[in-house]
Structure formats: structure tokens, C-alpha cells
């Protein structure tokens, strides 16, 4: 049985994280930034699962990945609620246009 070495998983995670960072920085829409954040969280989870493959008794990497998923769900829920409020107020979701604090 030729298992995939752990470095390959880490390289895939690094690629996904960098692409997620580029998406989060360059998108001109708040929801595009959220897509980039989801990509970065997935990349972190790939790394955690890849290391958890080597100690199946404790499974701490998989447990941590599970909590990361919970936090990601909470984060996307709150941020979409905020985005809807911003859209109701400014009628746009472009981050450069959101430049005043007073309502």
C-alpha cells in the first residue's frame, strides 16, 4: 500500500491557502471576500486532517478540524447578516464604497 506522503497534503493546503488569500484581497465584493475566507479555512482543515492520519488513537487533528468547521459556520452566518444590513443601508456591497461609520 503506497500511502500519499504528508508533504503532498501540505502542498495542496498551501496552494489553497494562497489562492484564498489572493481571492480575499482582490475581490471587489464583500461576498467574494467571504469566499476567500472559506477557502483559507478549508486549507487549514486539509493540513489538520493530513497530520491526524498519523495518530488514529487520539485524532486531535480531526477534532480540531471539526471545531474549525463549527466556527466557520458561525462566522459565515454572522457575516452574511451584517452584509444584508450593509446592503439595506448603502445599497451596495463594494468594500471601497463603505467609508462612513455614522448611520
Amino acid at each position, binding site marked *: 500500500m503506497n500511502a500519499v506522503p504528508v508533504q503532498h497534503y501540505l502542498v495542496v493546503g*498551501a496552494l489553497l491557502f*494562497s489562492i484564498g488569500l*489572493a481571492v480575499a484581497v482582490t475581490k471587489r465584493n464583500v461576498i467574494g471576500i467571504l469566499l476567500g475566507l472559506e477557502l483559507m479555512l478549508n486549507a487549514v482543515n*486539509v493540513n489538520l486532517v493530513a497530520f491526524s492520519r498519523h495518530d488514529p488513537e487520539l485524532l486531535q487533528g480531526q477534532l480540531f478540524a471539526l471545531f474549525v468547521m463549527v466556527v*466557520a459556520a458561525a462566522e459565515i452566518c*454572522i457575516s452574511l447578516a451584517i452584509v444584508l444590513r450593509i*446592503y439595506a443601508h448603502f445599497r*451596495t456591497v463594494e468594500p471601497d464604497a463603505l467609508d462612513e461609520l455614522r448611520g
Partner: protein
Amino acid sequence: MEIAAFYAFATVAVASALFILFSRSLMHAAFALFFTLVAVSALYILSGSDFLGIAQIMIYVGGILILIIFGIMLTRPARAGNSVSSNRIEVGASNRFLGGLAAAGLLALLLLVVLSTRFVLSGEVREMHSTLRSLGMELMTRHLLPFEMAAVLLLVVLIGASYLALNRKSST
């Protein structure tokens, strides 16, 4: 066989992530995110964590992606003939250049670290079996406090999100 499947799913994940990066339409980007999430879930299952792969499909594809698509559809940009936004000036893409540069630099740094490190945990892969029982035992014994905190966090998020997204126009 396993290596071929790994490379196929990793290629799908990275390619659709690149599609998200370069696509103009946000809805197309959301559908590309679907392919990325499913491919990452396949990577989880390939590395022996079956429960996490199913949870990835259920939470991300079934919940988060649907929420994102709802968000995209509810926040359509205004029409082009709008008097407020008709005479806006599009500024050049220095942000795009700097962002790409930062991401490429981070990728180079990560690859340097990953390829030059000997990991303690990277020994032989243990015998694979279903992780469901041990995950449940761990959650209920040693990780009980984070488990309960996650429950409280989800409750707070539920209340907070429904309060934030409340339509205040009708009440005033």
C-alpha cells in the same frame, strides 16, 4: 491507485479555486467553490477521516454554500443607469497586483517550509478504520468543554444573526 485519486481530487480543488480567483461573475465563483469543497471532502475521505468528509459535505455544501448563494442573490448591485453610481470612476488595479504579490510570496514561504522540514508525525500511516467511534468518545470525554462551548457559540450566533438580519424598516 490511491495516489492517482489523490492527485485527481487535488487538481480539481486547486483548479476550481483558481477559477474562483479569476472569474468575474460571483455566482460562477460560488459554483466553483462547490467543486472545491467536494474535492476537499474527497481528500478527507482519502486520508481516512470518513466522518469529517461527510460533515464537510453537510456543513459546507449544505449550509454555508447555500447561505452564500442566498447572500449573492439578495445583494445584487444597482442597475448601471442609476443616477447615484453612474459617474463613478474605476480606479486601476494596484490592489490586484499587490494582493497577487502577497499571495505568491506567502505560497513561496509555505512551500519552502513544507519541503524543507522533517515532520515528527510523518511516519507510517496506521491501520485505517472508521473514526466515528473514537471521535464520539473523544468529544464526550476529553473534549467535552470545547464541545459545550461550540453549542453555546451556535446558540449565540443563532440569536445574533436573526437579530442583525431583522428588518427594522417595518417597525418604525
